[in-house]
């Protein structure tokens, strides 16, 4: 036991499992699991099985290692149907150490995520159906007025106090109907829960939940760009060149990707000069053109998790709009959130000024001008 402890400490000393987790999710998770075989082998105990140098060579350029006649390499290649592992020139030796630290560490303890979001706490606000309320109140007004009129015409006795009650009731109803109408129209184009049928029955639950693929593996734009982007078909093909059968949908849905990009699953080859077809996804989250929302800003600088706005996507079979995406919703968050200034040199001087002039330690988004119209509308 103590030996094991020393070993894990050593592993920890060699690499940073937190960094490794991020790298693993971005680069490896689409083909490898820690505990089970996917496209590639399970990662459990890999650092005991292979030497560090071998792993570095293999990860950076497996093809070269195979060609060099390495027995282990050829054996692995044969075992996994000769599917080549992509080359990761971009990963440094330190990165690989980090990944291995994560893989080893995961054996014993689950790495704590700093920003873990408990999505079960986020609930969709239940809203009154103002549309219906408006129609009902108008109907009641019409009916009552009609009845009163009928009484009046028929010259039936009407006690004064009763008439007073009638009119008070109607005035209250008129107010209610105005309010309901206002609330109803204000709700127009708020599409919370919008869940269109997509051209491919793609399940986020399978990909993001079961397979635990990092959101940003496919939506890579969210790290760098204003738009998170919908992955192009070639990103799908990173896995689906071999995963040809879905867990829920069988072969039909995945075949739609092949049709779009021009891939023959039988020969595992792309057609040449294929007339590629676009996949026309239905857009779920749609901000108006005059709103400039930047994903990378909110993820990298704001430190938001995707789920905070998009809900528990990993539990959705078909994606729906989770948040209201109204300005009120944006502004609420900007009012309450503080900016994480630590360690970012950009904020150094600004934060110092801030502490001096306003005698406050925390800066909220609002105080940095996050409520100004021009920050989002230009």
């Amino acid at each position: 036991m103590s030996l094991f402890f020393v070993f894990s400490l050593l592993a920890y000393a060699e690499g940073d499992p937190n960094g490794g987790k991020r790298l693993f999710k971005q680069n490896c998770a689409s083909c490898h699991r820690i505990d089970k075989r996917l496209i590639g082998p399970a990662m459990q105990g890999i650092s005991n099985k292979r030497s560090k140098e071998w792993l570095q060579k293999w990860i950076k350029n497996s093809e070269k290692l195979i060609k060099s006649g390495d027995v282990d390499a050829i054996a692995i290649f044969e075992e996994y149907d000769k599917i080549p592992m992509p080359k990761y020139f971009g990963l440094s030796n330190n990165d690989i150490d980090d990944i291995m630290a994560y893989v080893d560490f995961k054996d014993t303890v689950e790495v704590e995520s700093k920003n873990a979001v408990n999505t079960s706490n986020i609930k969709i606000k239940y809203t009154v159906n103002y549309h219906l309320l408006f129609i009902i109140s108008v109907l009641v007004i019409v009916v009552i007025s009609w009845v009163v009129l009928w009484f009046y015409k028929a010259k039936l006795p009407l006690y004064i106090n009763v008439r007073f009650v009638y009119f008070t009731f109607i005035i209250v109803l008129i107010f209610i109907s105005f309010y309901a109408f206002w609330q109803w129209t204000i709700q127009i184009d708020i599409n919370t829960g919008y869940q269109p049928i997509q051209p491919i029955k793609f399940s986020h639950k399978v990909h993001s939940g079961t397979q635990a693929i990092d959101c940003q593996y496919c939506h890579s734009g969210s790290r760098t760009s204003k738009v998170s982007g919908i992955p192009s078909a070639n990103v799908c093909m990173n896995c689906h060149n071999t995963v040809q059968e879905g867990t829920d949908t069988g072969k039909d849905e995945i075949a739609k990707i092949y049709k779009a990009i021009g891939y023959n699953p039988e020969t595992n080859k792309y057609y040449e000069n294929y007339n590629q077809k676009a996949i026309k996804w239905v857009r779920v989250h749609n901000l108006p053109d005059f709103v400039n929302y930047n994903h990378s800003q909110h993820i990298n600088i704001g430190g938001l998790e995707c789920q905070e706005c998009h809900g528990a996507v990993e539990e959705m079979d078909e994606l729906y709009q989770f948040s209201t995406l109204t300005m009120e919703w944006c502004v609420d968050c900007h009012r309450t959130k503080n900016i994480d200034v630590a360690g970012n040199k950009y904020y150094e001087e600004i934060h110092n000024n801030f502490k001096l002039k306003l005698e406050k330690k925390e800066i909220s988004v609002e105080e940095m001008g996050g409520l100004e119209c021009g920050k989002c509308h230009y």
Partner: protein
Amino acid sequence: MSVKKYWKAIEDLNEDSVVMNKLRNNEFVEEISTEKFLTDENLKNGSTSRRDFLKYVGFTTAVASLSACDGVVEKAIPYVVKPETITPGIADYYATSIADGHDFASVLVKNREGRPIKIEPNNQAKYFGTTNARIQASILELYDNNRLKFPQQSEFEISWHDADYEIKTALTNKSASGKQIVIVTSSMFSPSTDEVILKFKKKYPTAKHIVYDAVSNSGALNAFEDITGTRALPLYEFDKAKIVVSFGADFLGNWLGGGYEKGYSKGRSLGDEDKADDKAGNKGDAEMLQHYQIESVMSLTGANADFRYAVKPSEQTYALIKLYSLIVGGYDGVGNLKINNTVIDAEVRQMAKKLKSAGDNGLVVTGSNDKNMQILAMQINIALKSKAMNLNKHVHVNKGNDKDIQQLIIAMNSGKVGALLTYNVNMVYSLANSKEFVRGLDKVQLKISMSKFVDETAKLMDFNFPTPHSLESWGDAMPIDGEYALIQPTIKPLYNTRQFQDNLLKWAGVEVDYYSFLKKFWQKNILTKKEGATWNKSLYDGVFSVSTNGNANADYERGLLKINIAYVVKKAVRFWNKTKGTELELYVKLSMGNGVMANNPWLQELPDPITRTSWDNYLTISQKQARELGLKNWNEANGAMNGSLVKLTKGNKTVTVPVFIQPGQAYGSVGLALGYGRKVGVKSEMQTGVNAYKFYKNFAKYSSNIEIEKLEGEHKFACVQLHNTLMDRDIIRETTFDKYKNEDKENWNPTVTVKTEKGKKQVAEVDIWKSSNIEKEAVGHHFNLSIDLTKCTGCASCVVACNAENNVAVVGKEEVRNSRDMHWLRIDRYYSSDMTKDVADENGLSGIGGTAEMYDKMEIASNNPEVVFQPVMCQHCNHAPCETVCPVVATTHGKQGQNQMAYNRCVGTRYCANNCPYKVRRFNWFQYAENDEFDFNLNDDVGRMVLNPDVTVRSRGVMEKCSMCIQITQAGILKAKQEGRKLTDADIQPACASACSYNAIVFGDINQKSSAITKEFNSDRKYYLLEELGTQPNLMYQTKVRNK
């Protein structure tokens, strides 16, 4: 690369209608089991009649259309295979060059989602790294829907394969029968293209290459050839001059290929940027280029000169000869002409004295296309040993040879030419003797046009081959000896086009594409000149320079000896011998250039810096002559300007043209801009002005014996500046270099005070506003913009850059007349007049009756006024009058100092525009996008590709104005945050500042001590526009300094 609109993929309503989608979705969500429904036996016994059925259908349709309030179903279409370099939402920059035969510039092209959307100068380029208005606007030419989209044979589509076959056969026949094959191109200074043409000539020995520049610089080229033996231009470096005397050379505009902006700006710099804290008296070592301009038409260069003399062309010649005789010696008189008596004799003597004492710091230039004039000017420089005229580094941006063209026309008419291939030239339009050319064209059997458009020339050709835009092409250039530039495509060709070079290679039977040819050529011939140079690095940089000794050892004195100056002078004078009557100068406008970009609405709508008139050319005439002829300009009640029409006659050529009375126009001369009057291949709205090339006989810029006859009728101008004078307001501040250097700041840039009951007080002390948060909490950034009136020349490239960056709409001539132009940035041009309030007081013109007279006299600008250009955009006031009056709070102030405009909030009351003292707000009177009434670039799918996806396209009824490029500052701040570093000036340069070739516009954060703007902020010359109003603008101006 794909041109897919990933970011905004609204499906056509016709393809997937809203209602249909809605219903379809509901159907699936509900999962109605049709099987069960249809097998239900009760259905047959149901009482639902046909009428009921129709009722239900009607009801559901109504409900469906009601629920359509939810908005359209949008599609999001990703790439099938995403190119590695493209990330939606992120801009890529490519270094390339724009070379359209008239202009040349090394540029960076901003690409979004594979679409080039903006051109910026390539600051790495030592020469030609500046963008003028036309270069900025050339991005729109790429997306011109009028471009030729496929190869044509007599107006019918033909495949490249068939065309190649036919042309190869025909060329072989022509070559075998000994007939000439002539290739006419605009100036191309591309080493690899020269090689391609060589290959072509090898295959067809009778082939000949002729260079044709619509606006010729043959005079200078021939003069230089006579002196040095090389047909090129000397390199003029204005930063090395201390005194410049220009005889009609518009070197800030279109003189000898342009590109002199940076040097001039450097020479004109006061050197005060580094010693901002010094008070007056410590500027003793500052030096400033002194600029004399002798010209007839008021040019941009003349407007910026320290001393400008309005002198008609013939007198310019005499003055230059006079200057020559004073500096080099001899030739006081030629024949019976007494050169002693020029109209500006005293001034020329003064200049000669100054030039002599300046020695090698002097420079004399002339804009004449007469070889003899050019020889005289170059001779003076050689005699002065001028450092500013570098004879050893040759400039190649112009190569046209007038003589070759005239010989070609003769050869064509005599039937010697078997095939004519034109590339990027429009000779039918731009030749003075275009009738002879057209007659000769009939005798040419094979006529091939290679052009972006079916223009006047292409229309008469057998074959029309579309060529790609510079931004879709490969290529290289050597504008100056040892200075190379590369051209790389920034977008996949939009149409079925093929490059000129590819065509020639194909027809020469060289089976290699031009890209491979170019790369190989560079690797073999150019990259070898410098150790370690690689193709990829050069392509990345866009420019590549090798050190050359040039012809340092050449002895030009000896070359000069061969030239018989007496003969040169005689010839120069002979041109004017029979002169009588009015003289005409043909000039080139900054906006339209030589006319190739006539179909570019940005350029059409760009007001001329001098006349402030767009959508036209006109005859500029002096006030005196206009009065003599009874010609008038007048304004209608709504401010729109009208002018008289005249018939302009020279020999047998006449044209009807409106007159524009131009202060500063030399009496006895008139001016007319080239480049207008295009008719073919140009949208009807853009067929503006008259074709002045008619009078460009023998490529002579000047001509005499002009008759002007007044006609009945009037012409409606689209002139945007009505005020000719300052009207006594303290808008412009200027001083002389001497005062600036030696006197206290208060003397030439006094602090603004206002009169109160308690005496004079500073503006800040009598503020009605509470001090804003910006001043109190200098926490984050506080952006300021400074405009240096000394450096600004009014060249207007910032205006076009702003159009491109901010999706500013073009409104057309009629709306400009209605003062509804949408330019966020205008460049006001002020003439300073002899009449001021002080003068009026002296003459007893003040008082109630006198005031009107005084203003009248102020409005009659003097005959040769001084000119100031003042770019004005939103001043981003900290105490903004516009913000307080908006009833819906659509315009608000940001903590960063920007006055923000939320378009989606604006309801269009226009209170803000009324309350703005600077008149910088623009109202969308109409829907300018997707509206057939405004058939410009926003009205077609191709034209809309130029739109910047980061900026909203405004709709009707919305106010808009300069945002200080908030999309750029926001992106810059985000970049700094993500990289975890402080914000730098380079992150946040707005479009106008980065386009400014003269460094006149400086932008930055005044809360950062190291930024360039802080120096401007602390400068002595700083002043604010209408400071007395207490608006506290975030835009500042720097007092104009004249070196006189």
